[in-house]
């Protein structure tokens, strides 16, 4: 029996885990679900807390970085990225 990983990436509207989901990605190592860009317009969870409550394990959260002088107002990548996993016994 192989253990396989499912990965959920949630982008929240602030650094708080109970903040709203604004973007998301889902990768299924079992191959049962095939997710790709643009495949859903509504997230599976409204917040990071809802994902926790559904059994997702938080494995990484983006740090809060200081703002480089002169670059304080530049926007780029989404700031509040949270990686979750589920380990699935794949028979």
């Amino acid at each position: 029996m192989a253990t396989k990983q499912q990965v959920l990436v949630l982008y929240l509207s602030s650094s708080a885990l109970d903040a709203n989901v604004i973007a998301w990605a889902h990768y299924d190592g079992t191959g049962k679900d095939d997710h790709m860009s643009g495949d859903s317009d509504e997230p599976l969870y409204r917040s990071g807390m809802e994902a926790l409550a559904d059994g997702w394990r938080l494995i990484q959260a983006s740090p809060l970085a200081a703002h480089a002088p002169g670059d304080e107002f530049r926007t780029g990548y989404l700031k509040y990225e949270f990686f979750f996993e589920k380990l699935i016994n794949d028979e």
Partner: protein
Amino acid sequence: MSDCVKLNSREMAEFAAEGLLRFDGIVPDVINQQFLAEAGSVDTPSGEKGSNRTIKSLGNLMAHSSLPEVTPGTVLNTAYKETTALGELVRLPVVRGAIESLVGPESMVDHHFLHLALPSSYYKAAGIPQRTQHTHQDSTIDPRRAFDIQLFYFPHEVGPDMGGTRYVPGTHLRIVSESAIARYQNIRGQQHVVCPAGTLILMHHGVWHGGGINRTGEARYMFKIRLNPSIPQVRLWDTSDLSPRDFEQRPIFFRKEAMNPNDIASLLTRPQPWFEGDTGRLEYINRIRFWRYLLGDENFDADYWVTRIENEPSVTV
């Protein structure tokens, strides 16, 4: 050159905030049909296997197409013969006016390309999975204040199963590196193009976008033209609707009357569903600075967002 109907200030402010303007069905069908005939058709599936099959199909199409090659930097006015579909398209008064409002009367063609979303039968015949295109920003890291525009031309009707271009309004001022944003599979507020034939979307070069999966039996065509400005993009539109009210500060937060949604300040501070709490405010600041560039007025502000952070009283001795 032909007559042109320029954009007004509300449309320009909407472009500054959303990064795009959409004109559904604006291109007459006679031009759409001419374009499709000039573009040519894609090879029919022959059972050939291999991941380079779609590239070969596109290569064959380009080689036999009547659409012209254009050298980068060619002035738009000379890039497409008047008798061709593209020549007629860029000379339509509304199209011409929108282009001139955004990138000026002597804009240059950067490049153009025919984007094909091939039907599922191609992928089955080639034995490769059919995937959507990752979300990306075109070209490369581009921190300029000046901007290019991209015309997305949909020459035929695009139904919901055809995988019309996905785009995220309001992302154009974010400085990212092309496909570095591919991890963002879905973003709140993303749009999927479903449109009548002859639809044009004019986008700021920075808008995040990607192609979808075409689940129909016919190829989907989208032609994209990137245009560069050759002059500062200052007050190129029809500014006759600008009034003193568009430059005045208005009460913020504690207000006794609802804000007029058509005020320039309202248009520039309209949030997107994907905004983060803190950087959504930075988006307002960056839109205001973008509008300052377009207006040629470094004192413009909307709802005090920039004035507040520029307030550095000097000490007099």
